[in-house]
């Protein structure tokens, strides 16, 4: 419980701090004095940004956690499962075929493609039954390459490469009141994930095991993956792509807290939010008054942590490896 409280406090402190970082001056005295300009900046830009950051961190890391639990593999995540790539394809299709599409219709397309992409990927890894857990991640990355290739092809064909690249690089700089509210979809979805945490846990123990306990394996799998895809899609539509949050955050948390979903879900959500917030603060501070998109910072920090994690796992004795990468093999072979 301690870790949860510490993370929550950290999130609150950093969150309040982040409200006062930016180009336009916003200060506590100003707000208290009722300076309309400052209050307006706070309400129209800073607060939406903070909320979007929190939702993004929570959503992506919970999506990653659910996917890892359901697929019984620590290397599965929205990035390495083709979910993000599929959502991008959906957005591109919406942009091309419905030029006057609203944010909501784009989100709808992204939902659809993200779900279909994730289902295909999971069906694929389940038919093949890899002996090696790492292979699952490699296949996912390959799968993302293929979908990304198709997206690129369409983009080149319709001359949308530049539009696409601005659309897809994850960034909070365009988050303003009225343009980001879809991100709130994260809240009910995470709530549902909390309710069904037990079911996901059981499904994570394998098909036979869940059948014995009377849990409909396929239905729960389908349902869980859909929730993860929707979480990812509504973030990709508003914020853009952010790699590795869904992979790294759940791994770091389960390394310390074990695999029981109910115990880790809250911590993962909080830690994800803190992680994204810190990355965003770095991005804002590095070349201020300009800012770097979150995708770049998260990409650098995330992949560095991931490689460090990998090397750490390999260097420490076998027991630790089991704990972190474990129990995937026997269930995959069934």
């Amino acid at each position, binding site marked *: 419980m301690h870790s949860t409280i510490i993370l929550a406090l950290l999130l609150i402190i950093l969150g309040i701090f982040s409200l006062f970082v930016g180009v336009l001056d916003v200060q506590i005295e100003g707000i208290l004095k009722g300076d309309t300009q400052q209050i307006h900046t706070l309400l129209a830009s800073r607060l939406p940004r903070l909320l979007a950051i929190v939702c993004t961190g929570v959503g992506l890391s919970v999506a990653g956690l659910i996917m890892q639990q359901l697929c019984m593999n620590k290397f599965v995540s929205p990035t390495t499962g083709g979910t993000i790539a599929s959502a991008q394809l959906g957005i591109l299709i919406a942009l091309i075929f419905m030029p006057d599409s609203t944010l909501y219709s784009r989100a709808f397309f992204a939902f659809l493609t993200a779900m279909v992409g994730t289902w295909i990927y999971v069906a694929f890894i389940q038919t093949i039954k890899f002996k090696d857990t790492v292979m699952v991640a490699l296949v996912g990355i*390959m799968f993302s390459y293929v979908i990304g290739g198709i997206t690129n092809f369409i983009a080149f064909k319709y001359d949308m490469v530049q539009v696409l690249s601005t659309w897809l690089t994850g960034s909070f700089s365009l988050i303003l009141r009225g343009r980001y509210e879809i991100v709130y979809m994260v809240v009910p979805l995470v709530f549902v994930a909390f309710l069904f945490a037990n079911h996901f846990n059981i499904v994570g123990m394998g098909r036979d095991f869940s059948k014995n306990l009377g849990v409909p394996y396929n239905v729960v799998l389908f349902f869980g993956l859909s929730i993860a895809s929707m979480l990812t899609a509504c973030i990709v539509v508003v914020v853009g792509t952010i790699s*590795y949050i869904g992979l790294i955050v759940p791994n770091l948390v389960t390394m310390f807290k074990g695999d029981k979903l109910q115990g880790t879900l809250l911590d993962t959500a909080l830690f994800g939010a803190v992680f994204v917030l810190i990355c965003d603060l770095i991005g804002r501070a590095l070349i201020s008054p300009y800012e770097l998109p979150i*995708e770049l910072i998260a990409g650098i920090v*995330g992949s560095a942590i991931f*490689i460090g994690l990998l090397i750490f796992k390999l260097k420490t004795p076998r027991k630790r490896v089991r704990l972190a990468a474990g129990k995937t093999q026997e269930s995959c072979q069934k």
Partner: protein
Amino acid sequence: MKALAHKKRILILVLATMIFWAFYLFYDINFKFFEYYMSIRLPKLGAILITAFCIGAATLVFQTIINNTIVTPCLLGMNSLYLVIHTTIVFFLGSTSVFASNKYISFFCDLVLMGTMATIIYSYLFRVTKFNVLYVLLAGTVMATFFLSLQSTMVRIMDPNEYETLLATLVASFSHVNADILGIAFILVVFLTLFYKKELEVLDVIALGKERAINLGVDYDRVISKLLLGVTLFIAIATALVGPISFLGLIIANLARQILKTYKHSYLTLAAALVGMIVLVCGQLIVERIFDLAIPISVFVNIAGGIYFLYLLLANKGNQ
């Protein structure tokens, strides 16, 4: 009998390659400007030839070393390493410095930097993971993201004019190959191939697996580390010449294996190079004739390569 069948198939491949070459060189040509056409098309063909051979051979050797036929050295993230090195040079020294503007120096710069960096990084990774290739590949793909993030961070801060000149070298393309560099690359490839003659001869033995190879008298660790360096250098040459082109190796090495169904690396390398030329010439024709250079060739190679990879996984499921 078997060797004869292989030779026959290779002969067919050679013929097919020749036909594609001829088609590429002479299609839609105006004989009034024969020399002008040739001066444009021949260097492209030369670049295709060297790329196909380098990537085909490197992929085959890599697959044999790690005993897995569905991986490619491109997954190690060398392409993004190239991007990041190139961008760093322009970022810190400017596009007008000799390292970026002089074609020879920039070619060698790419080659040396990529060679040393890749060797240091991957030999460390191989050591840490105790030669567990899947972990190295995973680390490689993640590192690719790392390099790409670094690169795009630099691009974001960069002067737009500099970026314009940089962009041309970042996308794989056969459209503006410098004929002089082609010569240097060719000499390098020949030299490297001769240098690796002895190691290449024992590849057939290495394919049997580590224990058997050692029993048969191969100095396994030394040969492997030397070969890995060779793989890195070959990829570096191909990338420095035309730009990053992932998944090509996967397609051509596996097609060569499927066509020949042999384990003899002398045949396989030849077949991979030939298939590579056919694939690249076809790709280049599609890019030039159908899409008017609007879509880079790497997009096609990526889509085709990825789908082929997934197909291969399905086809020999259970073996991986």
